[in-house]
């Protein structure tokens, strides 16, 4: 084993676990205020180069830290995420703080309310450090579509961190936050987590409230956590999950104690390995790392079962029709009327709409709006959008049939490790094809976790994706913990 492991440089200063921090604050060995100050010091040093944070919330953070320290001083029990420094992807609104969605069109937008997930994190004692860079309106797989510059991968700053939640993944990898929230529509939590060597969670659709999430594709968007280890990611999910009267698509399914469930051994679980995810296009070093992870699961007492998901190849075209169609509708609200950028040179209302949007949106956003509008337009709706939604059902039912035979499905999260900045920006279609392993779960609504399971020869992290059925997050966490244990 010794000759094969590759250290990931960014984890030279791996963050503490949430439980250790909370214990230290409870026993008053550490003050939350000091912990937060040290995070801000590190941010000041590293952020100019890595471009992870777009804005900081120092006042709010220090007030929260003081609140936590006061509780500790009184000897009161501390809430579950007490003192935990967190970052929030800039598509989630925080009252009074710029929420740009990575776009110029919302450069000066200061929301009048907090996203439900933010409220829940703070109620659990977490300390909000700031807002994280991301691809514009969550559209992208490399964080190179941000109007505020790309994020650099802390593992290798000449490479992308992945996207669209590049800032959220990179923040944990660089220890500029202990946990972060990102969003995943086609892979935007899982893929950057894999590229940066951290844990990322795709909760079941409806598991976590979308209230306060600037919408990209409403039937696909999910909010989920990143952390340095599986148990912490499970703890954060437990805090943000649960039905919300402000989100009619949020589910009343009971929230399990995901962290405790993840402690259960994985022995006896049936793991499906779908052949379609191990075909051409898969980097050989990624394949090697995943196969090693599968051996780990076998050694842990799991039953490994080859399976087939024959319609996998149709997931990308399906996704890019459904997501862009929904995006074209969701982004219609950015028109310069009520918030955001309004072009100064317009004389008529119609001109105001198009000038504001032309000047405020980036190229990728415009491309997706146009594609989506085309797919929904009269004469094309049946051939494109409707067809895609039919294929979506076929893909979803294929997963349901698989989960009748296995408890979890494991795949590579991405066919390649983190690529270099600028490498794929010239070809949008090539960028889309990199989502091949993640969009299937997105369309079906099922859940998953990506866990680091190795690295390439030059030290680039490789993540394994563990998928489970709807509301099967506990199973996914159990399997992920088993993979993680071997890599530690």
């Amino acid at each position, binding site marked *: 084993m010794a000759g094969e492991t590759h250290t990931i440089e960014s984890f030279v200063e791996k963050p503490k676990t949430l439980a250790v921090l909370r214990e230290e604050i409870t026993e008053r060995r550490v003050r939350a205020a000091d912990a937060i100050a040290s995070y801000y010091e590190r941010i000041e040093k590293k952020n100019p180069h890595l471009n992870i944070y777009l804005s900081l919330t120092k006042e709010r953070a220090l007030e929260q830290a003081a609140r936590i320290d006061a509780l500790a001083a009184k000897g009161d029990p501390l809430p579950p995420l007490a003192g935990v420094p967190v970052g929030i992807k800039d598509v989630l609104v925080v009252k009074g703080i710029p929420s740009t969605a990575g776009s110029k069109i919302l450069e000066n937008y200061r929301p009048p309310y907090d996203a439900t997930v933010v409220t829940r994190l703070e109620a659990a004692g977490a300390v909000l450090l700031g807002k994280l860079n991301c691809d514009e309106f969550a559209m992208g797989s490399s964080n190179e579509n941000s109007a505020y510059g790309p994020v650099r991968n802390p593992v290798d700053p000449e490479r992308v961190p992945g996207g669209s939640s590049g800032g959220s993944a990179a923040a944990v990898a660089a220890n500029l936050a202990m946990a972060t929230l990102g969003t995943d529509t086609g892979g935007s939590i899982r893929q950057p987590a894999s590229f940066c060597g951290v844990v990322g969670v795709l909760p079941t659709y409806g598991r976590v409230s979308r209230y306060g999430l600037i919408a990209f594709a409403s039937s696909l968007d999910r909010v989920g956590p990143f952390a340095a280890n599986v148990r912490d990611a499970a703890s954060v999910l437990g805090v943000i999950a649960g039905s919300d009267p402000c989100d009619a698509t949020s589910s009343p399914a009971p929230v399990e104690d995901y962290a405790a469930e993840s402690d259960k051994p994985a022995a006896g679980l049936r793991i499906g390995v779908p052949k379609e995810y191990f075909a051409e296009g898969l980097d050989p070093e990624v394949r090697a790392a995943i196969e090693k992870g599968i051996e780990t699961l076998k050694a842990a007492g799991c039953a490994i079962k080859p399976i087939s998901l024959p319609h996998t190849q149709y997931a990308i075209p399906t996704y890019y029709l459904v997501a862009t169609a929904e995006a074209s509708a969701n982004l219609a609200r950015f028109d310069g009327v009520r918030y955001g950028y309004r072009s100064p040179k317009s004389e008529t209302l119609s001109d105001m709409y198009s000038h504001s949007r032309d000047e405020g949106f980036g190229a990728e956003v415009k491309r997706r709006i146009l594609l989506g*509008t085309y797919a929904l337009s009269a004469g094309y709706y049946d051939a494109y959008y409707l067809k895609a939604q039919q294929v979506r059902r076929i893909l979803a039912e294929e997963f349901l049939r698989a989960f009748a035979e296995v408890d979890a499905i494991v795949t590579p999260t991405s066919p390649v490790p983190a690529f270099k900045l600028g490498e794929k920006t010239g070809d949008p279609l090539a960028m889309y094809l990199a989502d091949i392993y993640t969009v299937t779960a997105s369309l079906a609504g099922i859940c998953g976790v990506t866990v680091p399971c190795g690295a390439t020869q030059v030290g680039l992290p490789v993540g394994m994706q563990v998928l489970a059925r709807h509301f099967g997050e506990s199973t996914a966490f159990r399997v992920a913990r088993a993979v993680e244990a071997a890599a530690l």
Partner: protein
Amino acid sequence: MNAKVTVEDVARVAELAHLKLTPDETAHMLTDLNAILDYVAELNELDTAGVAPLAQVSELEEFTSALRPDEVRPSLDRTAVTQQAPESDKVFFKVPKVIER
């Protein structure tokens, strides 16, 4: 589904989306859209006769959300909201005139 996208199509769709592209943007968009639509034409290989579209995955999940009673409840504070507007009289949002004449 195999129809090639033309410049007129791009212009029509841009108008629907309230986007006005420059000639350069239009040219790039034409290439990109054609490449992407060529690719998605692969979906034609599948026979989806009789398959109901799946627009909302919650249909597959064990739990479905109930709707709340249709009652008026307080919403966002008007002052906070109008403060975000590019132009407002604190009650309405102000925009350029709709009709020129």
